[in-house]
């Protein structure tokens, strides 16, 4: 059976005064009904642009889009604007990061929910209003009958996000795209919203794409994870694969640069040096090479492709290091060694004498 959404080799570039911005560069992913895909990356990694493109929201004269976005076998990329409008907000819906700017300040929340429904189906106003109250109740807003007649400014941040989710659910979508759905919220409210999404998915059986920079959030919600960097997917796998045996140096960097609640306190954070590259003048070779501690000369010329990780079905990585070298480095990192100490492992001399060069790899662990 083909997946619900199947994105193949998507490329999006914007033509600006400064040059061509390659926001998304050959990205493929898919998501099945009832599953959650997490897309992780920093600002400028292309995670939001790729999902906006799914809904046709980046179409413009200065944008070049190529690739296929198959939703139930139909290509959303080549679809007419009219036909797409019938899918958007109906079969595929989206919730955005900032609930205040996504709700219209002049209209009552109930009215906005009714509009979302009546745009796509002909139901009488009264029935739609009734359903609006039901939806607010579904997403856990207390006293929904009174709340439908209130304006967005009368809602708190968490309630606005719930109202957004209610609107996204109004037409029982098959796919919900949540772009940083909890970034603007406090932790206790974030926990409520994530639990709500999880619960709704189980009840309504929709597919969810959750886009976030927060590794904690994806770990708790996603079944599969795609890590994006500079417009490309650099690593992809199940949540267990990404967190337990990450393969890409960028993923290692992300995992090691965040303080966690359950690691020893004094442990030093290991930041990724440098900063994300410009998407106009991208680095040559592997896009991560200017920040990668394990870079070899050849990596500055060769462009890595997403390849399967041997012995770990479903896990893919775009890294030029040999798998064996990668696993030795990751073991070293877990033992608390710094990337600088382990960098030598990646150099060709160390690799050519594999087996005889255990000096750093299998050295005494602390």
């Amino acid at each position, binding site marked *: 059976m083909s997946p619900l959404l199947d994105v193949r080799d998507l490329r999006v570039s914007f033509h600006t005064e400064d040059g061509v911005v390659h926001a998304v560069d050959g990205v493929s992913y898919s998501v099945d009904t009832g599953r959650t895909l997490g897309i992780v990356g920093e600002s400028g990694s292309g995670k939001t642009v790729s999902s906006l493109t799914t809904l046709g929201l980046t179409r413009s004269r200065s944008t070049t889009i190529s690739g296929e976005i198959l939703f139930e076998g139909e290509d959303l990329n080549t679809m007419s604007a009219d036909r797409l409008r019938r899918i958007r907000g109906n079969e595929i819906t989206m919730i955005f990061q900032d609930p205040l700017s996504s709700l219209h300040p002049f209209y009552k929340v109930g009215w906005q929910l009714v509009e979302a429904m009546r745009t796509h189906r002909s139901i009488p106003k009264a029935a739609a209003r009734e359903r609006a109250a039901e939806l607010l109740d579904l997403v856990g807003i207390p006293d929904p009958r009174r709340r439908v007649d209130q304006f967005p400014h009368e809602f708190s941040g968490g309630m606005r996000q719930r109202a957004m989710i209610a609107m996204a659910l109004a037409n029982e979508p098959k796919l919900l795209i949540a772009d940083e759905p909890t970034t603007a919220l406090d932790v206790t409210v974030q*926990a*409520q919203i994530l639990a709500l999404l999880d619960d709704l998915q189980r009840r309504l059986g929709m597919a969810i794409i959750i886009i976030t920079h927060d*590794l904690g959030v994806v770990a708790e919600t996603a079944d599969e994870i795609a890590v994006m960097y500079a417009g490309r997917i650099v690593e992809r796998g199940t949540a267990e694969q990404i967190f337990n045996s990450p393969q890409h140096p960028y993923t290692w960097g992300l995992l090691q640069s965040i303080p966690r609640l359950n690691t020893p306190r004094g442990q030093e954070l290991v930041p*990724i040096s440098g900063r994300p590259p410009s998407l106009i003048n991208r680095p040559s070779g592997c896009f991560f090479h200017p920040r990668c501690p394990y870079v070899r000369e050849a990596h500055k010329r060769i462009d890595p492709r997403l390849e399967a990780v041997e012995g770990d079905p479903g896990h893919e990585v775009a890294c030029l290091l040999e798998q064996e070298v990668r696993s030795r480095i990751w073991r070293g990192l877990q033992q608390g060694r710094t990337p600088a100490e382990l960098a030598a492992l990646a150099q060709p001399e160390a690799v050519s004498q594999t087996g005889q060069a255990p000096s750093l790899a299998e050295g005494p662990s602390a």
Partner: protein
Amino acid sequence: MTATTKGAPLIQVRELTKHFPITRGIILQRQVGAVKAVDGISFDVHAGETLGLVGETGCGKSTTARLLVRLLDPTSGQVLFEGEDIAKRRGERLKALHREMQMIFQDPYSSLNPRKTVGSIIAEPYAIHGLYAERGARKKQVQELMDRVGLNPEHYNRYPHEFSGGQRQRIGVARAIALEPKVLIADEPVSALDVSIQAQVLNLLKRLQREMGLTLIFISHDLSVVRHMCDRVAVMYLGKVVELAGGDQLYSFPRHPYTGALLSAVPVPEPAGGKRQRQLLTGDVPSPANPPPACRFHTRCPKVQEVCRREEPLLEDKGGGSLAACHFPLTEEEVALQLPAGLAGSTVAAEG
């Protein structure tokens, strides 16, 4: 572990209160209420330690920071710096206070003047205090500072827009340490930064603290970051300190149900390891203009009893060095259930 009790505390906060009036009417304004942003908090800060202030939006942590450096004047209560009430300082004495206490702000985009060069932004404290006035000395000093915080000194004449978020935050740090203050107050210094950049700034702050012997007051809503940075942590809720404890103690054995719920809510970047019984709070934080009577947490507290609605609990010792304001502090079993695996009781076990 903790840099405590070396003589008198550097900063003593006593019953500090800040109410912002809510007024109605345009010409004849009358006060119809008050936002009780900070409502009677007391704590000490010792020289050389890092004190964390955590809490959600509207709990009063940023107002507290502004009161400490006297960017705001308190409604009542005192802040004693080296034993002296800062509210009584005027003129030169107030200026001297600002040499001792400096602040780093959350948003590196709005806290730097876009029309000034980086060099003149960092040199501004020297201009105000008339330091390094000789020709060339100021520039040399500023370039040294830039080098120290990891900026390229050659970028002296560039403007803030030419820098990334992380670099801008470094400019803010350089400006804050220019006068070699004793106390640095960092208000959400990494919240606006990307994950891979956050660690750079956190490591920088830790290094500077070591090198300069700074006392750091670190304000954040991110409990993982606070745990990483702080020796002691104060948890705030609706203008009150509800729990104050050493970092290890607070995270391994929280006593206040609010602290427990906060820790329980933090997503852990581990697909299986973080599984635990979530203590989900219902509803949102009530408005600080109209906080609930008695215990302010009673409207959301899972352990609420009748007495919580009548009597306000005091911040008092609940054993193990934890201060908590709660009639029914969490028990060990409850903590073990709610917290992510590997956190509950971790340090207790290590010590025993």
